[in-house]
Each structure stands twice: as C-alpha cells, then as structure tokens.
C-alpha cells in the first residue's frame, strides 16, 4: 500500500474518511460472514420449514452486506466494489465480530447466536435511521424491518428449545453458555466508532448494550435458561484478530471468484 504524502490532505479529513470506510466495512462484514454461516444449513435444516427459514435469513443478511460493502467501497474511493471487498480480501482485513464466524454448531447454537446478533442488529439499524448519510439511513430503515423478523424467529425457537425436552433444554443452555463470551465485543466502542459518531455516520455501540441485555434477559427467562457468568469477554474481530474459523469459511466463499476473477453469472 502506498503511503500518502505528508501534507497531501489535512489529517482530520483522512481520519474521518478512513473511519467511514472501516465503520461501513464492519456493518457489511458481520452480515456477510453470518449470512454464509447460515447458508451452511441449506439442505441440512432439522425440518423443511427451518431449512427455508435459515436460508431466507441468510439471503437477507447477504443482501444487506451487499449494500453496506457497496457504500464502504464508495467511502474508500479506490474503485473497489462490493465483490472486490467480499472476495479479494484476506481474513486479517475482515472486520466482523468473532461471534459471527464461529462454526454453525448444532441447531441450538445457531439459534442462540441468531438471537444475540439479530437483537444487536435491530438496535443498530434503529439508531442508524438517523445517520446523516442518507444512503445508510435508507438501508437501515429497510433492514430494521428484516431484523425484526429475524428476532421473532430466533426468540420463538429459543423458547421452544429451552422450555422443551430435557435434551433440547440442555443443548440450548450449552449454546447460550458458549456464545456469551463472544457477545461483549458487540458493545465495545473504539476510535472507529467514535469517529463515525463524530461525523454523524454511525452509532456508539456502547449505548446498545443495556437494551440488548433487556431483550435477551426477557427471552432467556421465558426459555427457562440462565445467563452465564462470564468474567472475560473475547474480542479481536474488529481489528482483524480472528479465530482460525474465519480463514476456512473465506476460502470456501472466495474460491470461485478467485479462480475465475473476471467471471460473471
């Protein structure tokens, strides 16, 4: 990467445009990676309706990712479109949460993760409707409606599983225990978030933690599940420090585009 000549642009402008790019990249990457994880259920759902539901949600997420990455490419201003960003970046350049890259696990794990992410996602979109970036605000208004459906779907299922048989209860609790230490990363505000808030583009994620916890507590209680005690929250995805799982899913996702870089279909 070329280094910009000193004095070529005022430092403030460089920081904000970079922050806009990074912020939009995070929005896109979370949904791209989770959408691909969910698509792994295609043909493997526990019942036909769920096979359809999970892949429908995957489609919504990949559709959202497409829009956010297009905006990110424009903010970056180097001519990269959504495909270039999705298919020709390495794992270290991905900015998604660790939560969304974890393997799909069993159905309970998938549902618990969907609930955690969908509530977070809805709260994000609800706030992003007020973004000064009109494109982002418009996409957020549409995506909020989709996220609301996703929340209903996963909340219903978590209650069915938690308040179901001994085995489904045990698996649901194990799933909640496993995802919990990855949920803290959603609410950590860093320089990118602060800069995105300062330019009117983004929302401060630390303000979403309390309402998120309120919704999760409500569902878990009805599901007869308990909130695990976690002393340490995992993080790193927002700065490119990923788990080993991301490289594997990216290689699968990117192989066709990289093998036939000029291919169209």
């Amino acid at each position, binding site marked *: 990467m070329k280094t910009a000549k000193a004095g070529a642009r005022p430092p403030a402008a460089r920081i904000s445009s970079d922050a806009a790019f990074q912020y939009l990249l995070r929005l896109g990457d979370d949904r791209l990676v989770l959408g691909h994880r969910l698509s792994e259920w295609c043909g493997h759902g526990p019942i036909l309706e769920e096979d359809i539901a999970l892949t429908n949600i995957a489609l919504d997420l990949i559709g959202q990712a497409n829009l956010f990455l297009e905006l990110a490419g424009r903010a970056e201003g180097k001519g990269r479109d959504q495909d270039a960003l999705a298919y020709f970046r390495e794992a270290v350049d991905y900015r998604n949460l660790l939560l969304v890259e974890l393997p799909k696990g069993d159905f309970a794990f998938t549902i618990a993760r969907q609930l955690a992410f969908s509530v977070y996602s809805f709260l994000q979109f609800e706030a992003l409707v007020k973004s000064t970036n009109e494109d982002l605000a418009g996409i957020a208004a549409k995506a909020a409606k989709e996220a609301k459906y996703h929340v209903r779907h996963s909340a*219903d299922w978590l209650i069915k599983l938690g308040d179901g048989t001994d085995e489904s209860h045990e698996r649901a609790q194990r799933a909640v225990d496993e995802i919990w230490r990855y949920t803290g990363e959603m609410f950590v505000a860093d320089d990118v978030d602060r800069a995105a808030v300062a330019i009117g583009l983004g929302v401060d994620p630390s303000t979403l933690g309390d309402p998120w916890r309120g919704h999760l507590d409500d569902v878990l209680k009805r599901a007869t599940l308990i909130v695990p005690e976690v002393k340490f929250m995992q993080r790193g995805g927002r700065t490119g420090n990923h788990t080993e799982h991301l490289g594997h899913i990216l290689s699968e996702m990117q192989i066709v585009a990289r093998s036939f870089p000029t291919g169209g279909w």
Partner: protein
Amino acid sequence: MQAELTTEAVWEFLDQVMDPEVPVLSVVGLGIVRDVRLDPDGVTVVITPTYSGCPAMHVIERDIVTGLAAHGVGLVRVETVFSPAWTTEWMSDDAKAKLVAYGIAAPAKTNDDGGLVTLTRRGAVACPYCRSTKTTLRSEFGSTACKSIHYCDSCSQPFEGFKAI
C-alpha cells in the same frame, strides 16, 4: 421515442409487468415502482426492493426494460432507491384481492410502532381457501422472502401468507 409519450402511459405499461415470483401482481400493484420520469434522453423508472436480498430484483429490472420496449419505449433507465423503505401498506386493495384469489393470504395492517417487541403475538391470518381464521403459523419464512407458511386447521390446507412489513 414518440413525442406523445406521457408518464401516465408509462405507468399503464408498467402495470402489465408482473412480479416474477407472484405473477398475479404487477410491479405497480406490489408498490415497488416509486416514480416515473420522462427525461430528454429517455425514461427513468425508480423502483425500491421489497427485501434487501430479494433475488428477483435483477429479473424485475430486466422485465421492466423489456416490458416497456414491447410498447416501443426504448432508452429505459431503472434506478433503485432504498428510502422510504417498502411496506405492504403500499399494496392496493385490488392487489390484495388478487393475492387471495391466487391462494396467498393478504398482508394484515403492519401496525408497526417501530420498536422491538421480542415476543410479538401475531394476529390470526385468514385461510385464502375457506376464510377460516383457525390457522397456525408454521414458519415465518416461506418460498420467497416476502411470504410466511401457514396451516389451516379448518380445511387442512397449507398455504402461504404475505408478510406484513
């Protein structure tokens, strides 16, 4: 382009372009055509997607261009906007009646206050075949992003419903 072309005529032509996934509804009846502009260099049709990931949007764009071409309208530009977000409130009563006749329950009023209620109870969806409201939601998601799957406990018929968003 003919000099006498009007926006009204273009709207009429568009009303003959059917949604590829729900072929009884036109793209106008579905509410996805938001604006038609006659510019000196052609026609601009402004559309909005039903869902962010709706895979039918590319087909719809193509169908709009070919549909207008069939009426001799060339130089068509299709522009996509995201705001304001599409809502089933934009579907006409006529469109809803066509849906039911086709075997898909029409969307209820959205009644959306904007906030998140994690456990919303849904209103009963009437069976498009026997009109009974003794029906059960089988899945929030159906064969396309815009539909859900239901089962009628009265006439034992599974059916799809248009999601109210």
